[in-house]
């Protein structure tokens, strides 16, 4: 997808020159932590790891560590990032539109406004599509039907509160329909939404363009509109504005730094990321992944982020089911489970009483060896508490030893040695072999 990259690059060049001039020779960042608020493999993780490679390959930062803090559409990572002990160490959090919406949708106690904005990196436009055989001809037709009876149009897309849901809400608002009336059916992602549309389960499907592209190119789905401001090369669908819907939305990804960092650190981070975004290695990554370059930094990004937060917050509040009626569907299943659990518990109790009466001595059970149980419980407690403080090897040794001793108390001395060897072996195998980062603790520092 085309962007006005040339203009933007020139602007970046100018900002760069000015920052360079003002700060003279900036010392490079030696060590940078990038927090990906998602599990390995997800979009934010891929961004973080691609950055890691680009920054290291280009020699912009000597060591880049990627840390995954998954959970609740990035809000767990955001909270941890904001609440970390204040320091002026170089750290960045990968963020994006989804996180802006999730903060509202998940009632997160923290907000992106607490962080220091650095830059927007990439963006992807959304596409609205119907199955090829659908009677809906174009976007205007869809809007007309939607206005006529909002309940009759079901919109399939990704998780509730995510980009696709936000777009459905924005379209409804622009079409003059109460966003609360959108019959939005949340699936786990674009792939599932496309499948639901192909199977005729939903009327329209919304997702990022890349996810629907194969279905559109093979003429199974028909794109009605794209959420970009202008027509995009390679995409047949017109922008939403052509159907009189004045909405644009990009699923962008960007970076923020910790709260209250020094101006110097902010400048160095911005400059490093600006350089990275122009580097050959980053540009090659963008091309390879099909990510479109939407780099924006400094005051422009700050303004963009503020605007985006305002508009997304407003629509997310409207979309979030509230009140006794709106939240009712979310209560039915838990009520059934609670009720069922209660019935089963009573049945279990009655069954137990009955068998106790029949056999007053009680069921023949194998007696528990209490000492062993205690030793293992101590071992588990030691492991959970020592893991971050003492490091993996010490915690593992303690656990291994405790369990071994719980089984056989006579060989405790020899088992210490086995435990140390086993734990060290595991540590080396997993950190070196699989690249899994385990807490090193003092033990590793002592070796080095």
């Amino acid at each position, binding site marked *: 997808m085309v962007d006005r990259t040339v203009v933007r690059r020139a602007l970046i060049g100018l900002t760069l020159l000015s920052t360079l001039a003002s700060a003279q020779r900036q010392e490079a960042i030696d060590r940078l932590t990038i927090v990906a608020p998602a599990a*390995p*493999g997800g979009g934010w993780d*891929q961004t973080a790891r691609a950055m890691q490679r680009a920054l290291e390959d280009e020699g912009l930062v000597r060591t880049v560590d990627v840390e995954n803090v*998954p*959970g609740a559409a990035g809000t*767990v990572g955001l909270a941890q990032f904001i609440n970390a002990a204040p320091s002026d160490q170089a750290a960045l959090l990968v963020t994006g539109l989804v996180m802006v919406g999730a903060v509202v949708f*998940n*009632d997160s106690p923290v907000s992106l406004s607490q962080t220091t904005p650095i830059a927007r990196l990439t963006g992807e436009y959304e596409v609205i599509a119907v199955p090829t055989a659908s009677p809906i001809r174009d976007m205007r037709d869809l809007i007309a039907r939607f206005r006529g009876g909002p309940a009759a149009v079901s919109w399939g897309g990704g998780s509730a509160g995510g980009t696709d849901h936000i777009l459905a809400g924005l379209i409804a608002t622009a079409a003059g329909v109460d966003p609360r009336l959108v019959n939005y059916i949340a699936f*786990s992602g674009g*792939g*599932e939404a*496309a*499948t639901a549309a192909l*199977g*005729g*389960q939903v009327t329209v499907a919304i997702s990022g363009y890349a996810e629907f592209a*194969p279905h559109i*190119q*093979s003429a*199974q789905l028909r794109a009605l509109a794209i959420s970009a401001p202008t027509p995009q090369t390679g995409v047949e669908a017109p922008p939403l504005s052509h159907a009189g819907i004045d909405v644009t939305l990009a699923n962008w990804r960007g970076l923020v730094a910790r709260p209250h960092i020094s101006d110097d650190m902010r400048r160095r981070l911005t400059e490093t990321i600006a350089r990275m975004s122009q580097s050959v290695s980053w540009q090659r990554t963008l*091309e390879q*992944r*099909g990510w479109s370059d939407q780099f924006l930094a400094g005051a422009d990004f700050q303004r963009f982020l503020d605007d985006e937060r305002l508009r997304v917050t407003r629509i997310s509040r409207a979309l979030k*089911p509230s009140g006794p009626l709106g939240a009712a*569907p*979310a209560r039915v*299943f*838990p009520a059934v*489970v609670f009720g*069922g659990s209660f019935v*089963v*518990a009573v*049945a*279990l109790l009655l*069954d137990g009483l009955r068998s106790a009466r029949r056999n007053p001595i009680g069921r023949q059970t*194998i*007696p*528990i*060896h209490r000492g062993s*149980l205690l030793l*293992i419980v101590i071992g588990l407690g030691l*492991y*959970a*508490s020592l*893991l971050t403080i003492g490091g*993996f090897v010490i915690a*593992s040794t303690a*656990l291994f030893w405790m*369990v*071994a*001793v*719980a*089984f056989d108390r006579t*060989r405790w001395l020899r088992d210490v040695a086995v*435990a140390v060897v*086993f734990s060290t072996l*595991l540590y080396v195998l*997993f950190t070196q072999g699989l690249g*899994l980062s*385990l807490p090193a603790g003092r033990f590793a520092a002592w070796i080095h």
Partner: protein
Amino acid sequence: MDSLSALADGFAVALSTRNLLWGFAGVTLGTFVGVLPGIGPALTIALLLPATYTLDPIAAFIMFAGIYYGAMYGGSTTAILLNTPGESGSIMSAIEGHLMARAGRGGAALATAAIGSFVAGTLATAALTVCAPALVTAALRFGPPEYFALAVLAFLAVSSTVGGSAIRGFASLFFGLLLGLVGIDRLSGEARLTFGIPALLDGIDPVVFVVGLFAVGEVLHVATTRSSGEGHIVPVVGSLWMTREEWRRSWKPWLRGTLIGFPLGALPAGGAEIPTLISYSVEQRLTNRREEFGQGAIEGVAGPEAANNASAAGTLVPLLTLGLPTSATGAVLLAAFQQYGLQPGPLLFQHEPRLVWGLIASLYVGNAMLLLLNLPLVGLWVRLLSIPRRLLYAGILTLASLGAYSVNRSPFHVALTYAIGAAGFAMRRFSMPLAPAVIGLILGPLAEQQLRRSLAIGGSPMILFTRPISAVLLLFALGLIVATVFWPRFKTDSRS
């Protein structure tokens, strides 16, 4: 046939020395991580993803496919020998498999698992070659109401099939369902039962649950009852390999397992839980040695293991043709495709024939490699049992803790795993079956989401009964209830 010549080209790609080596590296690594509780193919591939960036995509995918299949083979090993399955796919084979191991037939159980996996993997890959597009068309007919009905059927089947008492089965199921409620509701954004703990917002990870319930619970159980001979495993009685009798009893379950596993795996809801469970309960009802179920019946290992591997091949159907990942590993593989700028979907077969057919061919090759690798290993794995028990179980618990930590790299998840382990220990004491809890945890959220989607689409619960497939599935479920309530003998009275 077009696909046959394309497959021949695929073999040319897969059989190049370089790709064979990558495939071998993949299956070896996969077997290794599959054996470890909690460290599965999804995590391994995700961790290797950045490292393979510079690799040729075909080589990378051949290795990933090897890891995926290898983990399926390896996963059954510890499940059978030590009753510590590391992922949900090998839970059903652990039930009879471990009982066999306790009776000195561990070697035969491992062999029937390995050969069954090979048979199922190969047949399912053949089915993938021939009828992937047709399957997709059929799978699209499965909408939310059908998935909900399938989940309900699975709930009833597991609670009444596994273990001796239906009440205990349901108690275990509801324990899983309750824990499945934890986390943010995907359809409304509401946090449920999280008690203000951010680490619970995404719910309880199935890996944490399985590792806690099985591995941690088992170690606690064995350690505290060891003086009574509990957990004492006889290494080998009679032949290490399968006897002629065991062969005769295994081949039909292998084929039935394949027939059950592949189509269910190919459905866009995926997962190995439903196919392995259905295979187990089918074998239990078809066998003429029902009394052996609950004592270590080889059919109960052969069927679910075949179903597990066939469903793994099945999950590649929606992944390759619809771009739809239906398992954790599928999701990571999708990310791998995207890393190379490829978007799986209907056009992948046309745009990247070398990659797709090379990948499919490498599945055949990988299966053969795995059989060659695993059969000789059976002897070695069985020898695991002669490691002194104190060191063996200490090692298991250490590895399980590492697995639990690696899921989210958080000590909280380690503590959660231990708490679930304590529950697993208690359930063993009260002879409650464990499998229904896992089914409840994994399928509970799925059932809820699909039910609510059905209601949003159809407007009323009638949609569940007016659509033919879901109506038939619900009818089956009703039949199962009636049978369990009115003819208690219908259920096998295995462990009393």
